[in-house]
C-alpha cells in the first residue's frame, strides 16, 4: 500500500505538466502585453481558432462551406484530397495565423493607436467574439478530435520505473511530456529571439517607448504584426496541446481564464514569469485538491488559482517577475 507521500509526488508531477499547459496560454498574453500594452482578451479564442483551423485543414474541409452552400445552393464540404499530413497542416495553419495577425493589425489596432488601454482591451473583447463566430462559420461548430500524431496515453517507462522504486506506478500522460518539451523549446526560442535578434530588440523597443523606437528606425506597424503573429503561433501550439488532450470545442477558449491567475503570479511582462506562474498554479491546485480537497468537499481546482492570485495581488502586485514599478517623485 503506497503512502500519502508517493501519491503527493505523482500529483505534483501531474500538476507540473498541467502547469506547462497553462503557461503556454499565458505566454501568448505576455507577448502582446509586453510589446503593445494590450491585454489581449481574445488569446483563448485565438487558440480555439488556431486549433479549429488546423483540424479543418487536416480533414481537408472547405472553409465557409455552410455559407457557400447556403448562398450558391452547392453541396461542397471537403476538398478532393480529403486529408492533409500533420506537419503540412501545421505549416498551413501557421500561415493562416500570420495572415490573421496582419488583418487584426490592419483593420483593428492600426485605427486605435494611442488610445487608452481600456479601449484596446474592449477591442480585444470584440475581437474574441468576432473570431469565435468566424471560426464557427469557417469550420462548423461540432466537436472535433485533433490528432497530429503526438503520442498519447500512459508513459510505460515512468510507470515501470516508479513501480520498481516505490511499488506503485505513476500515471504520466505521454502527451503531457511532449507538451513540456515543446513548451521548453518554445520559451528558449522566444527568449533568444527577443534578446538577440534585431526584430526582437525592435519589439522590446516598441514595448518601451513608441517615439524613441521610431527615432531609431523601428516600424511600429511591422512590430505589431510580428507580435500578433507570434501570439497566433503560440496560440496554435497551445491549441494543438489542449485540443489533442480534450478535443477541439468551444470550451478550449475558456483556458484563457486559467491564464489570468498565472499572469498575476508571474507578472504580465515576463516570459519566464509565465512559465513559473503556470507551474506554481498547476502544482498548487493539484496538491491543494489532493491534500485539502477531501476535507472541504473537493472541486477546489475551480477556485484555488484565483484565490492564490488574489493573495498575490495584495502582497506583490507586479507579480514574481514583473517589472518593478519605479516612480520618480
Amino acid at each position, binding site marked *: 500500500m503506497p503512502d500519502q507521500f508517493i501519491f503527493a509526488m505523482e500529483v505534483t508531477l501531474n500538476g507540473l505538466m498541467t502547469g506547462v499547459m497553462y503557461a503556454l496560454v499565458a505566454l501568448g498574453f505576455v507577448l502582446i502585453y509586453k510589446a503593445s500594452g494590450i491585454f489581449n482578451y481574445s488569446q483563448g479564442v485565438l487558440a480555439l481558432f488556431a486549433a479549429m483551423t488546423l483540424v479543418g485543414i487536416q480533414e481537408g474541409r472547405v472553409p465557409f462551406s455552410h455559407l457557400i452552400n447556403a448562398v450558391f445552393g452547392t453541396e461542397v464540404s471537403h476538398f478532393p484530397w480529403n486529408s492533409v499530413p500533420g506537419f503540412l497542416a501545421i505549416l498551413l495553419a501557421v500561415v493562416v495565423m500570420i495572415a490573421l495577425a496582419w488583418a487584426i493589425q490592419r483593420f483593428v489596432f492600426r485605427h486605435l493607436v494611442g488610445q487608452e488601454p481600456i479601449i484596446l482591451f474592449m477591442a480585444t473583447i470584440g475581437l474574441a467574439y468576432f473570431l469565435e463566430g468566424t471560426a464557427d462559420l469557417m469550420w462548423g461548430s461540432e466537436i472535433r478530435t485533433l490528432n497530429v500524431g503526438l503520442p498519447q496515453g500512459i508513459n510505460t517507462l515512468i510507470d515501470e520505473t516508479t513501480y520498481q522504486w516505490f511499488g506503485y506506478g505513476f500515471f504520466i500522460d505521454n502527451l503531457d511530456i511532449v507538451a513540456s518539451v515543446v513548451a521548453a523549446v518554445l520559451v528558449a526560442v522566444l527568449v533568444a*529571439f527577443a534578446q538577440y535578434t534585431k526584430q526582437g*530588440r525592435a519589439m522590446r523597443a516598441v514595448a*518601451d517607448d513608441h517615439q*524613441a523606437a*521610431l*527615432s531609431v*528606425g523601428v516600424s511600429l506597424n511591422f512590430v505589431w504584426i510580428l507580435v500578433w503573429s507570434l501570439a497566433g503561433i503560440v496560440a496554435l501550439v497551445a491549441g494543438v496541446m489542449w485540443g489533442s488532450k480534450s478535443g477541439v470545442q468551444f470550451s478550449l477558449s475558456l483556458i484563457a481564464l486559467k491564464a489570468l491567475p498565472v499572469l498575476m503570479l508571474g507578472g504580465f511582462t515576463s516570459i519566464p514569469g509565465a512559465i513559473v506562474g503556470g507551474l506554481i498554479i498547476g502544482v498548487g491546485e493539484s496538491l491543494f485538491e489532493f491534500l485539502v480537497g477531501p476535507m472541504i468537499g473537493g472541486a477546489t481546482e475551480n477556485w484555488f488559482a484565483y484565490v492564490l492570485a488574489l493573495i498575490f495581488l495584495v502582497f506583490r502586485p507586479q507579480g514574481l517577475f514583473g517589472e518593478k514599478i*519605479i516612480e520618480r517623485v
Partner: protein
Amino acid sequence: MTMMHYEPYQTEDGRTIGNTLMEMKNITLRFGGVVAIKDISFDIREGEIRAIIGPNGAGKSSMLNVISGFYNPQDGEVWYKGERRPHMRPYQVARLGIARTFQNIALFEGMSVLDNIMTGRLNHMSASILDQMIWWGKAEREEVKNREKAEEIIDFLEIQAIRKTPVGRLPYGLKKRVELARALVADPSLLLLDEPMAGMNVEEKEDMSRFILDVNDEFGTTIALIEHDMGVVMDLSDRVVVMDYGKKIGDGTPDEVRTNQEVIDAYLGVAHD
C-alpha cells in the same frame, strides 16, 4: 530645381564645411487653421553645426519634426543628399541616416543605458534571424562591431559609470546625454538635437556644449540643433536660422544674425502689428 552647391571651405578652427546635405524648400506646415511654418527655405551643409533659434512657439520644433519625418508639410520640398525626399514615415527617415533627440527625452526607460545605446545600432544589423538567435557567423561579427561602436560612444560621452544602470533611475542631465549617445551611435549623416540644453543648469549646459562641439569635430557629424537660449547657440554654431511666428526672419553666421534688426526685435519683444 536642383540643389545649390557651394565650394567646400575651411573654418577658422580647421573643420571642413562641404556641400549642401539637406535643403528645405518653401516648407509650409499647417495644423488645421494654425500655420506653424510659413514658406521657409534653408539648407544644411555637410560638417556644419546649424542652429534653428527663435522665441517659444516660433515653430522650431515643428521644423525639426518635418526634417525627421514626424510631421509632413502641406507645401514645400525636402531635398536630402541631392535627391528630393518623398513623403516618409519617421522610421524610414531614421534609416536614411538622420538621427534625432527629443525635447522631452524619449528613451527606453526600462532598459539599461547600454541597451538603450545598442538600439541605435538596430539598422546596422543585417544577419539572418537564425544566425542572430545563435550568435553565428555574420551575426556575431556584427554584434561585436556594434558593441565596439557603443563602447566608443560611451567613452566619448563619459558615461562609463552608468552603463548598466536602468535609464529610468538617471537624473535629467544624464538622460539627455544617453539620448545623444543613442543618436550618435547610429553613425548618422545628420544629427538633429531638439533643445539639447533645455532644463539644464549652467554646468550641464557647458558639458553638453562641449560634447556637441567634440562630436562635430571628432566624427565630422553634421548637426542641426534647436535652442531658444540665444547665448549658447551663438558660440556653438556655424550658421543660424532665426524663426518667429512660423516665419524665417534671419539666416546667416552668428555675427550677421546678431546685428539683424528683425531678430533683435523678436528677442526684445517689440510689439507685432
